[in-house]
């Protein structure tokens, strides 16, 4: 342990771990679980984990952009409940196409409310989105009247809506494809376009960004639209996978999403992070939960281990960056 600290102090391993800490942790976990359970590394299981992580993953992509721009979005969980309830409910009433369209418009409007309050009014994002978390929950209850909604069982196997959650292309499940395609598009936009650079600038140093002519309010507004868009896509996947929904289906998912983003190494302070990191974070979280389940751990062990892993990952990240395990400031 001392050697480890020494080496970090001397900066020898610093660069390597700082850049790849999360990958190393990921590989170590995969090996450990692979030894523990012979099913863990089977193709079926890998596919199953990535598929069930895809929905959290899609939401995490949007939240990553929000976090890079220096804000938070805690409303994604209830927004997911809202979107799923709506798209499933409207599916039989107006058909899958219009249902998706109407739902996306409504979800984007919710995102616009977030974006307006945080971008243009400049309220604190934690407070605004925490408020939206319960407000949207209320909206969902009003919309559904408390009832569970389902796609009519007789059309579940024939509607083209099933493609998003249950379809596959070349043997790969559709949620996985949607997740990766969206990750590539958003990852490209954020890493290689002027828009992406503006998002980083706003998160890294808002004052400097504004002085360089970036319209901070518009950038922040747009990040919440992206986040809402991703939630809409996740709602389509979830609705199609389950062919039904309930008011609290997304409850608590905002924390899983945020945990994935942080686990990947995107800083909560804004200005740094990447989509690739988030994808890794999503997969780590998915594999931890699945691995513990396959090894037969009870659920409370999963909660504790998930917490420990997040703390370790974030600690490793911080320690590598400052070259010390503990804070140098008293």
């Amino acid at each position, binding site marked *: 342990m001392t050697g480890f600290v020494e080496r970090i102090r001397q900066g020898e391993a610093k660069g390597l771990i700082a850049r790849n800490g999360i990958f190393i942790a990921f590989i170590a976990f995969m090996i450990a679980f692979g030894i523990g359970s012979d099913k863990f590394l089977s193709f079926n299981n890998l596919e199953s984990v990535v598929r*069930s992580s895809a929905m959290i993953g899609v939401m995490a992509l949007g939240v990553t952009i929000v976090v890079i721009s220096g804000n938070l979005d805690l409303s994604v969980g209830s927004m997911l409940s809202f979107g799923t309830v709506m798209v499933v409910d409207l599916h039989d009433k107006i058909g899958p196409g219009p249902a998706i369209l109407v739902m996306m418009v409504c979800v984007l409007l919710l995102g616009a409310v977030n974006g307006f309050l945080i971008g243009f009014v400049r309220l604190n994002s934690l407070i605004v989105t925490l408020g939206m978390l319960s407000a949207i929950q209320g909206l969902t*209850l009003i919309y559904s009247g*408390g009832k*569970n909604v389902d796609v009519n069982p007789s059309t579940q196997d024939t509607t083209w809506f099933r493609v998003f959650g249950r379809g596959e292309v070349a043997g790969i499940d559709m949620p996985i494809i949607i997740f990766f395609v969206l990750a590539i598009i958003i990852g490209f936009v954020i890493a290689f376009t002027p828009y992406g650079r503006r998002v980083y600038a706003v998160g890294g140093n808002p004052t400097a960004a504004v002085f360089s002519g970036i319209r901070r309010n518009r950038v922040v507004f747009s990040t919440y639209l992206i986040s809402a868009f991703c939630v809409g896509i996740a709602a389509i996947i979830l609705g199609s*996978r*389950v062919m*039904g929904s309930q*008011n609290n289906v997304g409850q608590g998912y905002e924390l899983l999403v945020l945990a994935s983003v942080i686990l990947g190494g995107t800083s909560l302070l804004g200005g740094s992070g990447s989509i690739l990191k988030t994808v890794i974070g999503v997969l780590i979280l998915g594999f931890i939960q699945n691995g513990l389940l*396959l090894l037969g751990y009870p659920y409370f062990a999963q909660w504790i281990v998930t917490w420990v892993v997040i703390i370790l990952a974030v600690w490793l990240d911080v320690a590598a960056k400052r070259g010390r395990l503990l804070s140098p400031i008293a």
Partner: protein
Amino acid sequence: MKIAYKSLIAGTTALAGMAFAGTAMAQEPMTIGITQNNVGVDSYQTTYEKAFIEAADADPSVETVVLDAGGDVARQIAQIQDLVQQQVDAIIIWPTNGKAVVPAVRAADKAGIPVVITNSNIAEEGFDFIKSFSGPDNITQGSRSAEIMCDKFKDMGIENEAQIVQISGQPGYTTAIERAKGFEDRLPEVCPNVTLLETQPGDWNREKSQRVMEAFLVKYDDIDGVYAGDDNMGVGALNAAKAAGRDGIIFVGATNFAVGYEAMARGEYWGSIYQSPVDDAKNALATAKAVVNGEDVPFLNYFDTPKITQDNMDQFTKPVF
């Protein structure tokens, strides 16, 4: 702010006034107040409230004050205090939290107002202050599910080698704990050779349950039965099995939902426990009435929740939730 506060008082007073007027006018109908957990949060509670109001309207000897705590313990305690102030003849409480409401229940009891708990019981330390609990017997529900599962295995002739998994409700919820306990205790009695491979929580959430089942299907090559803490989760598990192409699994749930009923009609889902929110509401009202009239009421006044399977489902109407 001040205006709002005043109108709130005016509203409460008017409500109390109405309650008193009601008592005075007719040939002394009793006033029963109810504070519910969270109407609108799910279809069960929504239907319960509707049925309760209908049953009370149909009964000329009863006036009701129907309140809803919106899932908020503090609001529920305030509502109980309000009902005590109004001096209703009995209070029915659907606890938002089994422990937190106990002091308010105690205060109502001290004020001489009988309290009936509905649907899910309060913590044991409050038992001295209530007259009766009206609701489903979750332990019996769990054991009946075990019997349904076992009977089906016997029909299929696999009662000596069948392997099952359990998807339970949200950890910490009495309903979840009791159903699991009833099931786990009864199964070895009726089918000693059936193996319960593993239990994981599905949190009353269909999507979560579907994910848990996907993992089970990867982990275990041979699963003959699934017991889910309610049909909503059961259908999630069924989704997972269908997607994985694993046929022939026997699904048994509890609290028959419309989706479960429909899946049974399609022959994909074997059985469940029929728990009607209408019966639940009627039983609560009847219990409270009996208490006010001084009749003998069992302390645990359960309403019957029968077994429903593909074989007898035509005797039941499709659940509305």
